[in-house]
């Protein structure tokens, strides 16, 4: 296309991507450096990684350790929440996704389901907190974190599913019915295989969005810390644990990138590029 932008626009775009990736790459490099807080790499060491792992193990065994960084409980909680949110998103998009594009009054449903996207997370979190804690007097707990993460991840999972479900040709279902397929057969043998990319996407969105969720979690918890919350609180404090946060954040980043690649391969690996 001769009208497509050239030069400056593209370079500027990649400059922004550089600004985006610079701190992430720098984080990884600094996590292996002796003096990470100076911002200058060098004096290579894995001591911060050792501290991340052993500080919590030592604490659990009742031994004294140089650092009071305790990553175990937040990590376990975050992994558990991510699995629950992921499963909940898959079930919810399977309920909503295939039906929504085919009903007449889908507008209000769509606005309602996508509402969390229109509200800053911090306001959404405080809103749900007010309702459940102040108005109907329920105690916060793991259930409220699950709810908060689901509220955050579901709209994204639904959008991914709708892209797939909107292309779904319902004549396939009619043909299957005419050929004598029972409802559960139509569901398992026609809907599920066709909707597979949407299902994977929903599970993946649910997992990673929950695993890194922060704004809702700030209010929807009762004492427990999720991993992003713990890292955020610790990184705000100017103390000795900050190098450990670099190490832990590097581990989380590597895991997230790995999962993203895995999900992209799962979702698109089986198909040929259609362009």
């Amino acid at each position, binding site marked *: 296309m001769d009208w497509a*932008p050239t030069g400056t626009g593209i370079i500027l775009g990649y400059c922004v991507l550089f600004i*985006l990736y610079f701190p992430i790459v720098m984080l990884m490099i600094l996590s292996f450096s002796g003096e990470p807080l100076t911002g200058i790499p060098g004096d290579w060491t894995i001591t911060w990684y050792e501290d991340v792992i052993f500080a919590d193990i030592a604490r659990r065994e009742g031994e004294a350790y140089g650092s009071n960084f305790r990553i175990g409980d937040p990590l376990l909680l975050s992994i558990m929440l991510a699995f629950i949110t992921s499963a909940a998103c898959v079930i919810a998009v399977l309920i909503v996704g295939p*039906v929504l594009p*085919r009903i007449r009054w889908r507008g209000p449903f769509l606005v309602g389901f996508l*509402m*969390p996207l229109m509200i*800053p997370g*911090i306001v959404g979190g405080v*809103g749900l907190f007010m309702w459940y804690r*102040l108005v109907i007097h329920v105690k916060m707990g793991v259930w409220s974190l699950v709810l908060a993460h689901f509220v955050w991840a579901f709209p994204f999972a639904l959008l991914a599913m709708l892209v797939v479900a909107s292309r779904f040709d319902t004549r396939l279902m009619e043909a299957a019915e005419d050929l004598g397929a029972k409802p559960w057969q139509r569901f398992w043998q026609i809907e599920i295989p066709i909707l597979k990319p949407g299902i994977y996407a929903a599970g993946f969105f649910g997992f990673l969005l929950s695993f890194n969720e922060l704004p809702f979690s700030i209010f929807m918890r009762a004492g427990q810390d999720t991993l992003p919350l713990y890292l955020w609180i610790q990184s705000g404090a100017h103390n000795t644990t900050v190098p450990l946060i670099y190490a832990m954040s590097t581990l989380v980043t590597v895991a997230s990138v790995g999962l993203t690649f895995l999900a992209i391969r799962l979702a698109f690996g089986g198909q040929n590029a259609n362009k």
Partner: protein
Amino acid sequence: MTAAAYTSNRSSGLRDFIPRLPAGVWSLSGFSLLWFGGIVLPLLAIIVVSFLQGRGLKINFDPTILQYKRFFSYGGGEMLARSVRIAGTVTMIELLLAFPFALWLAKGCKNNTVRLLTFTALTVPFFLSPAARVIVWRSVFGINGVVNQILLGVGIVDEPVLWLIFSEFSVHFGFIGAFFPTMVWPIFLSVSLIDNDFLEASGDLGASRLRTLLHIILPLALPGIVAGFVFTFIPMLGDAVVASHMGGNNVLMLAAQVQSLIGVSNFLVAAALAAVVLAIMLAFQVLLWLALKPVGGLAGVFASLRR
């Protein structure tokens, strides 16, 4: 296609009394009931709560605008104006940066490897821990950070430059990197859906590049631009990490204010603040609705994907 197409022909005793709807519609209704009752209603209820009085966890159902008066007398108005101004400025910068880039990615870039790598680069940050993305800037821009070391070493400045961190500059800077993909993706998607024939026809009929851009691409990409605006501006407005890590106490934004209000159990003033933000968001919803109307609304966007 109507839902009736799913309806089974067989009927049994009990089923004659229940409207013959497919299982899908029943489960959608059930889920919707839970969603609207458990999520949408509570979020809207915050507006009602903001007009009540009380202390701590006790509230009286007695309407008042006291909370709003308190909120604005505590300097809430300035904080809100600052948050909207910073998020708005950065969103406009993102739009200017992302539009040419997305246009090029959708229609100009022919190299598949470059495309795939750029897509991946735009996807990955979305799933990274928010703190991990900005925490390093403190070491880079701090008083003893890399930038200041270099500036002092080269001799450009005699004293460390202080405005590099914990300033409005650093907050803007931190936002620009973090919120680029949310602006690129929707614009990219909407531009991708534009039929190449339109663009060629426009060129064949003698339209200049600028004319094609203004009269063909811009109107057809409008849903993507609006979606990009929403996906960028709204999370930025409520962002808890960039403002606190890069702005410190000097650039107080929405999230920090909400947290400090909740921290001192000032729930009702927090509710008033949340209600004001909700009102801004409702105005946004109307804007989105108006922008999407020419293409048949949000549902129409998905209908267009069915082609």
